């Protein structure tokens, strides 16, 4: 086996989109390597001299193994550098892809519900894209997406496309009233009551802040969704991506290796335990 740490592929940023004041989507062309990341997986992105950060795949480029796309939110030193200093033409190191994927094969033939909050929509965007590309493989689709304000939605330029997915429902929410906003105001988890997928035969993919995911699970279970068909994308302090730095442990699970996508029934004993 090759050394995971030194398997950094040189990448060059070929496109950037400013999504919000704190987030940016960058498209990276891999120069001396290739990969075929699946929805739900992540890469370790490296900025020289600053370090690496785990960032989920946020788009699909079928057939193009030398292109990856990531949406980055400015939270710490490395991501700040990515937002402020990385431009089209900048170099960035990429190693991965790591982790498991959303169970799209398993979900074939079933309805799909997506529940996402804030930057948590980023790892789910490839799922939406996959559904669009393979629409016949799935039943009814509901997409719920919440943000604090209308400006903080990612991929606004694709919303029209999402709302046109046949046999689907695309619902947005914002936390507080906002001038000009005529949609739902409240938590995205409130929208679960408006879903019209078949609860007993639906796969639900959830990603967002931990508290949002906990509430989402509670409401989903109350509505009769099956706990073995609810999947959460967890986040922890990931440093290595390959289960040897240990800092992403979630109970006995290494989020980077056993996850980041977990079936709720496998982690139900941990989800509500503070700091596990």
């Amino acid at each position: 086996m090759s050394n995971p740490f030194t398997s950094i592929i040189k990448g060059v940023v070929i496109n950037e989109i400013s999504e919000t004041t704190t987030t940016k989507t960058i498209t990276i062309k891999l120069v001396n390597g290739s990969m075929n990341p699946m929805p739900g997986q992540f890469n370790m992105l490296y900025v020289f001299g600053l370090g690496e950060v785990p960032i989920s795949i946020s788009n699909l480029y079928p057939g193009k193994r030398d292109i990856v796309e990531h949406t980055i939110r400015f939270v710490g030193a490395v991501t700040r550098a990515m937002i402020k200093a990385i431009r089209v033409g900048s170099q960035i190191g990429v190693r991965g892809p790591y982790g498991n994927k959303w169970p799209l094969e398993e979900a074939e033939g079933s309805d799909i519900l997506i529940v996402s909050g804030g930057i948590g929509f980023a790892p789910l965007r490839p799922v939406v894209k996959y559904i669009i590309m393979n629409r016949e493989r799935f039943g009814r689709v509901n997409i719920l997406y919440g943000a604090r304000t209308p400006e903080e939605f990612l991929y606004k330029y694709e919303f029209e496309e999402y709302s046109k997915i046949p046999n689907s429902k695309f619902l947005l929410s914002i936390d507080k009233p906002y001038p000009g906003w005529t949609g739902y105001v409240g938590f995205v988890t409130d929208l679960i009551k408006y879903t019209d997928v078949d609860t007993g035969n639906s796969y639900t993919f959830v990603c967002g802040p931990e508290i949002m995911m906990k509430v989402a699970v509670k409401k989903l279970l109350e509505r009769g969704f099956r706990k073995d068909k609810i999947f959460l994308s967890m986040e922890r302090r990931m440093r290595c991506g390959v289960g040897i730095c240990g800092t992403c442990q979630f109970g006995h699970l290494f989020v980077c290796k056993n996850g980041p996508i977990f079936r709720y029934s496998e982690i139900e004993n941990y989800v509500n335990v503070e700091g596990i």
Partner: protein
Amino acid sequence: MQLYRGGIEDIINIYNTVKEFLKADVYGYKRYGNSLVFDFIESSSELPIDVHVVQRPGFYRVSRGFGFIHSSHSPKNLLYPFKQELFRVDQELNIKTLENSLKPVILFGIKPCDVAAINVFDKLFGNNFNPYYLNRRRSVVGIVVEECLNPGETCFCSTMGTGPDARNGFDLAFAKVDRDLVIFKAGSSLGEKIVAKANLQKASDDDVKRYEILLEEAKRKTNLGIGVEDIQTSLEKSITDVELWRKVSEKCVGCANCNMVCPTCFCSEIVDDVVGDEAVRIMQLIGCLSYTYGLVAGGHFRKELYTRYRHFILHKFVFYPKQIDLFGCVGCGRCTVWCPVGIDIRETVKTVASRYRG
């Protein structure tokens, strides 16, 4: 198993024989100021033969004597250094890997609990492929174990099934009964060869009896009086008992000494050290008891200290078995000895077990 006998001088005899036979560097415990370190042993005079350690919760003193136990160091210091350079990278992201050739190494006089800890790392880093550990581990060509007929006050290897006698994963083991009687046993064909080369005599029935009496006594002393399965199941039930975990961790100061001295604690972070035009990627240990464990730019996954102490304990007894089917605690007691406030892991597991057993 055939046992052999010798005197205290035969420990030096074995040291010389194994070193000569394997043509390898010897690493082991040696006196360093008022403590002991795990380091390169240049000559047999450095072996801790005339050393005695007194260890209690939050207490460690080295004196002259015969019953050396162990130290804050362990073979982890060699096999998984606190800081290790992973590779170098320049601004164009060209990577320079390290020279990976390590000299052959003999681990000499390590403890049965140390061997158990190496087994844990072997399995963990074999499953979760870690080339840096495996490379160092492969350099180990011989393991000589010193059994503990005089275990430390904080040791509980008998409960954990890791000592005080050598069980597996060693080439040769010795046990100091007294200055005139040291018992040797081979754990591999290499060990058999060393025994033959060192001209050791077979132990008499009387020798064996004296050894076994002391060993039984050592087993009794290192037994917590509670089964490890009981510890495991009660800990698992206690996960959501915040009040209990706050209580057992109330004295903890979050210094992470326990993590650093634990022979199976491996959690690390990776940092860049920029030197000239290059960045050196360095992996360094970070203990789960330290505040920064679980801290990320966007928040904190284990902000409260009790959650970090709980992780330390649960990882050893509950999570490690789920990860690699071995306990992560080897019963060495180092965490207890080197805790500045003397938090006793034995008391913690007993407290939890007394509430949740049965």
